[in-house]
C-alpha cells in the first residue's frame, strides 16, 4: 500500500499504473484537483497543512480498513501539502480489485472518510482575501461535543491507563454503512440550530462568516491578505 503525504507533485499516472497486478480486474482512481473558484470567488491557490504524523497514521488505518471492509486487493492514498495551484492534484486515491463494484465503493468510501477524519486543513487564497475552508463535520464519535460518553468517562475515575483505553472512536464510525453516507452534506455540520443558517445564507466553506465575526482580530487580519 502506498500511503503518503508529500510536498511534491503527485505522480498520479505513475501511481495508478504501478498498482496493477495480475489478479486485478479493475483500478478505480479518484484524482482530487484544485478548482478555480469557490462559489464565485476566484481561487488563486490553496495552502494545505496537516498534523503530519497523525494524518499519515489515519490514512494508513483507513487504507487497511478499506481492504478489509471491501475486500479489495490494494490501495494507494497520497495527499499533497503546501501550496497548490488550480488544476493540481491535492489528493489521489487508487483502488485495485478483482471487480469494479468493490473498487468503486472502496474508492468513494476512502475519499469521503478521509475528508472527515484525516487531520488536514486548507486555506483558500482568493484575489480579495484568504480563509480557512470550513471542514467536514467530525463524526460524532470523534467530535468532543454532543458525546454522551463525556460524563460517563470523566466519572469512572479509572486513572491514566483507563483514560485512553477505549478503542479508536473512528473505527466505530467507519464500520457499517459503506456508501450510505454522503460526505457532501453540510447542512447539519455544527448541529446547533441557527449556527449555520438556512440554505440561503450559505457560504459554507468560508470560515470568516461563522468563526470570525466583527472584531475577531487575527482572523480578520488574514482577510487582508497574507
Amino acid at each position: 500500500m502506498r500511503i503518503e503525504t508529500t510536498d511534491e507533485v503527485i505522480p498520479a499516472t505513475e501511481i495508478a499504473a504501478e498498482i496493477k497486478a495480475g489478479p486485478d480486474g479493475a483500478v478505480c482512481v479518484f484524482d482530487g484537483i484544485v478548482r478555480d473558484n469557490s462559489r464565485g470567488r476566484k481561487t488563486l491557490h490553496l495552502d494545505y497543512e496537516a498534523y503530519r504524523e497523525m494524518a499519515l497514521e489515519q490514512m494508513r488505518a483507513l487504507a487497511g480498513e478499506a481492504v478489509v471492509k471491501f475486500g479489495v486487493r490494494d490501495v494507494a492514498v497520497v495527499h499533497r501539502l503546501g501550496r497548490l495551484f488550480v488544476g493540481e492534484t491535492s489528493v489521489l486515491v487508487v483502488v485495485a480489485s478483482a471487480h469494479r463494484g468493490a473498487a468503486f465503493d472502496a474508492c468513494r468510501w476512502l475519499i469521503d472518510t478521509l475528508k472527515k477524519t484525516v487531520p488536514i486543513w486548507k486555506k483558500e487564497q482568493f484575489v480579495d482575501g484568504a480563509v480557512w475552508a470550513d471542514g467536514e463535520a467530525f463524526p460524532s464519535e470523534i467530535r468532543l461535543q454532543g458525546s454522551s460518553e463525556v460524563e460517563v468517562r470523566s466519572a469512572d475515575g479509572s486513572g491514566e491507563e483507563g483514560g485512553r483505553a477505549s478503542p479508536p472512536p473512528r473505527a466505530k464510525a467507519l464500520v457499517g454503512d459503506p456508501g450510505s453516507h454522503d460526505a457532501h452534506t453540510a447542512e447539519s455540520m455544527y448541529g446547533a440550530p441557527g449556527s449555520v443558517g438556512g440554505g440561503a445564507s450559505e457560504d459554507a466553506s468560508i470560515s470568516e462568516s461563522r468563526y470570525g465575526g466583527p472584531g475577531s482580530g487575527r482572523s480578520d487580519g488574514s482577510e487582508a491578505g497574507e
Partner: protein
Amino acid sequence: MRVCVLYFGVLKDLVGHSRSEMDLAEGASVAELLEAHRGLAKGREPLWNSIAVAVNQEYARSGDLLKDGDEVALLPPVSGGSAGLGRYAD
C-alpha cells in the same frame, strides 16, 4: 505536569502560534485543558463545539486523562481533499 498543545488551521491563526506548553494539575483531563482555553472559545461556540482533540496523535474523549509530556492537538473540522463541501460544486 506539563503538556504540549498544538493548534491547527483556523485555531492556529486565532491563538497566534502553532504550539505552546501548558502547565496543568496532575491528572487533568482533556476537558480541563479545554476549560483553560475558555477565552479562545468565547464568541466562537460553533467552531469550538465542532472541534476534536487528539492526545499523542489519537482522537481522544473529554474525560481522557492527561499525563506529563503528552502532546495534545486541538483540531478544527478537517478540510483535506480537493473541493470544499461538494454540494456547492458543479
